[in-house]
C-alpha cells in the first residue's frame, strides 16, 4: 500500500526540481480541517489524477494552489518559489491555469471574447487573436464563438473555460471535474486533448468519473478527509481495498463491463 509513492517519483526525473510541491499544506475553516498536512509533488510535464469522495478537500486544495485561499499552514512551492498566500493573479502569471469546478466564465460575453480575454493577458494584438482561434479550434468550439456563454449548455461552458485555460499556454494546468456535463463525444475529445496537452504541460485532473480516470490516468492521488490517503499507479489504486472502502465502492473498482451500462463500457473500450 505504501509502495505507491516510489512509483510517483519514478515517472519524472527524480533529481530535477519538481514543478509543484506542497509541504504540510493545511487549510482550516474554524474547527473543520478541509486540507490536512498534504505533501504533494508534481514533476514537469506530469499528468496526475486526484480522486476522492465529496468533501475530501480536492477543490479546497486547488484553491490553496491558485491563491483563492490562503492556507492556514504549510508551503506551496512552484519551481521552488513559495507561492502560498500570493494573489491569484500573481500565481496565474507564473503559469498556472485552472478550470474550476463550477465554471468560472464571463456569461455576458461571447465564447470567443471569453477566450480572447485569456489570450490577451499573455499576447498582444494579432498574436492574441491567433491564440484565441487556436485554442478554440483545439477544444472544438470554433463554431459557437459568437454565442453568449451564459446561454450555452453546461458541457459547452466547460469547453469554453477549458479553451480559456489553455489559450495562455500555462505550464501547470489544473482541471477540476472537467468532464462534468459533457456529452460522450465531448468527453472523447477531452481525453484526446488531455493526452495532447500533457506532451508539453503538467496537468492535475480532479474527476469523479472513474471511466474517465481509467482512460487518462497513470498516477492517481487519493484524497480522504483532507489528507492524502494513498498515491500510485491507476491500476493499483482502482483495485485497492482501502480506496474502495472510502470512496469507490464495489461498482467502479470491479471491471467496467460487469457493472456499468453499455455506453460507459464502450467508452472504456474506445481508449
Amino acid at each position, binding site marked *: 500500500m505504501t509502495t505507491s509513492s516510489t512509483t510517483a517519483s519514478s515517472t519524472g526525473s527524480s533529481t530535477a526540481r519538481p514543478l509543484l510541491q506542497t509541504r504540510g499544506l493545511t487549510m482550516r475553516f474554524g474547527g473543520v480541517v478541509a486540507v490536512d498536512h498534504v505533501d504533494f509533488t508534481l514533476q514537469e510535464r506530469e499528468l496526475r489524477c486526484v480522486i476522492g469522495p465529496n468533501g475530501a478537500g480536492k477543490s479546497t486544495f486547488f484553491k490553496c494552489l*491558485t*491563491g*483563492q485561499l490562503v492556507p492556514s499552514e504549510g508551503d506551496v512551492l512552484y519551481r521552488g518559489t513559495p507561492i502560498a498566500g500570493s*494573489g*491569484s*493573479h500573481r500565481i*496565474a*502569471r507564473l503559469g498556472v*491555469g*485552472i478550470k*474550476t469546478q463550477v465554471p*468560472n*466564465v*464571463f*456569461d*455576458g*460575453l461571447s465564447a*470567443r*471574447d*471569453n477566450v*480572447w*480575454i*485569456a489570450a*490577451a*493577458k*499573455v499576447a498582444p494584438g*494579432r498574436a492574441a*487573436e491567433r491564440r*484565441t*482561434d487556436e485554442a478554440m479550434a483545439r477544444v472544438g468550439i470554433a463554431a459557437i*464563438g*459568437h454565442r453568449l456563454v451564459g446561454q450555452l449548455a453546461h458541457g459547452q461552458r466547460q469547453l469554453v473555460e477549458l479553451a*480559456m485555460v489553455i489559450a*495562455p499556454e500555462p505550464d501547470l494546468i489544473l482541471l477540476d471535474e472537467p468532464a462534468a456535463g459533457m456529452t460522450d463525444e465531448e468527453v472523447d475529445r477531452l481525453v484526446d486533448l488531455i493526452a495532447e496537452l500533457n506532451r508539453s504541460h503538467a496537468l492535475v485532473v480532479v474527476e469523479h468519473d472513474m471511466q474517465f480516470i481509467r482512460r487518462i490516468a497513470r498516477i492517481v492521488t487519493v484524497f480522504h478527509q483532507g489528507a492524502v490517503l494513498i498515491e500510485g499507479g491507476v491500476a493499483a489504486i482502482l483495485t485497492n481495498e482501502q480506496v474502495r472502502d472510502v470512496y469507490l465502492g464495489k461498482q467502479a473498482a470491479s471491471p467496467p463491463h460487469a457493472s456499468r451500462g453499455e455506453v460507459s463500457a464502450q467508452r472504456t473500450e474506445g481508449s
Partner: protein
Amino acid sequence: MKAGRVKAGPVKAGRMALAGNLAVLAAGLAALFGLPAFAETYLIINSTIFAAFAILALSLALIWGYAGILCFGQAAFFGLGGYTYAVAAINMGETTLPALMAVLLPALFAGLLGYFMFWGRISDVYLGVITLTVSLIFYRFVNQTAGEQWNIGDAPLGGFNGIPSTPILNWPGRAGDQLAPEDIFALSVGLLLAVYFGCKLLLATRFGRILVAIRENETRAELLGYDVRLYKLAIFMLGGAMAGLSGLLFANSVFVSPTMFSLPVSGQIIIWIIIGGLGTLIGPVIGCILMQVLTNWLGTVSQIKGFGWVDPNLVLGVLLVIFVLLVPRGLTGLAAGVWSWLKGLANRAPAERSATREQTDP
C-alpha cells in the same frame, strides 16, 4: 478587432453601432448649433445644466454599467469638482488652471478612496454604503462652513448658501474675459460629445474589454492573471474625473452649494441610469435629459393652483419603482426589445427557413 469572425452577426451589429454613433453625433451637433439660434438665455442655461448632468450620468454609467462598481456617492466627486473650481478660481483670478484642478482633484480623491476600497476587498454592498457615507460627510461638512474661519484664501465656503459668486470661466489666458452663457453651453455640449465618444473608444480598447470581463466574473479575471484592483481603481478614478468635470460645468451654469453633495443628487444619477438602461452609454444620457425635463415640467405644474400636491421627487420615485419592476433593462432595453420583436415579425418566414437549414447543416 473584428478579424477572424466569420458570422454575419457581428458585421451587422457593427453597422448598427455606426448608425447609432452617427445619430448621437447628429443630435449633439444639432443641439450645439441649432439651439442657440432660436432659444432664449433661460433655455440655453437650462440646457447647459442638462449637458453637465448628462456627463455626470455617463460617469456612473461607465463605472457601474461597465465595471460593475455601484458607487452610491458620485455626488461627492461632482461637488468636489465644483468647489475646487470655485475656490481656486476666486483665489487665482484666471480660471484655466482651476478648471483643470476641478477634474484632477476629484480623480485623485477617487484614487485615494478607491485604493482603500479595492485593496481592502470591500464587497459591493459595502462599497455603496461607504461611497454614500463619504458624500454625506462632505454634505454635512460643507453645510456648516459659514463664517470667516472657513475661508480658503479669499474664498468663503459660505456654508448652507454655497458660493453664489462662483466665477464664470474666462477664455484661456485672458483673465476677466468671461465666456457668455452661449459659450458655456457650446463648451458643455462639446465636452458631453467628447466624453461620450471617449467612453465608447475606451470600451473598445483592450482595457475596456477586460473591464467588462471583470464585471462579468472577477474571480475568472484574477485566475487569468489580471490584477482586478488596478483596473477597478483606474476606472473609478476616471469616473471621478468625469463627475468633477460635470461639477465644473454645473458651477458655471448655476453656482456651487452644498446640495451638490446631497443624497438627492446621488440618487438621481442612479434613477437616470436605471430608467435609461444600465450597461449602455446612451441610455443614461437619455434618461438624464428626460428626467430633467420631466422634473422641470412637474416643478412648473406644481406652481399652478390646485396642483400643489404634485411633488417631482414623488413622481421620480414612482417612476423608479415602475422601471425596476416592469422595465428592468430601461428605455434602451425596451427599445431593443421592441425593435427585435418587429424584426422577428417581419422576417418570421425567412428566419424559420434558415433555422431549419442550420439544423440540417452539420
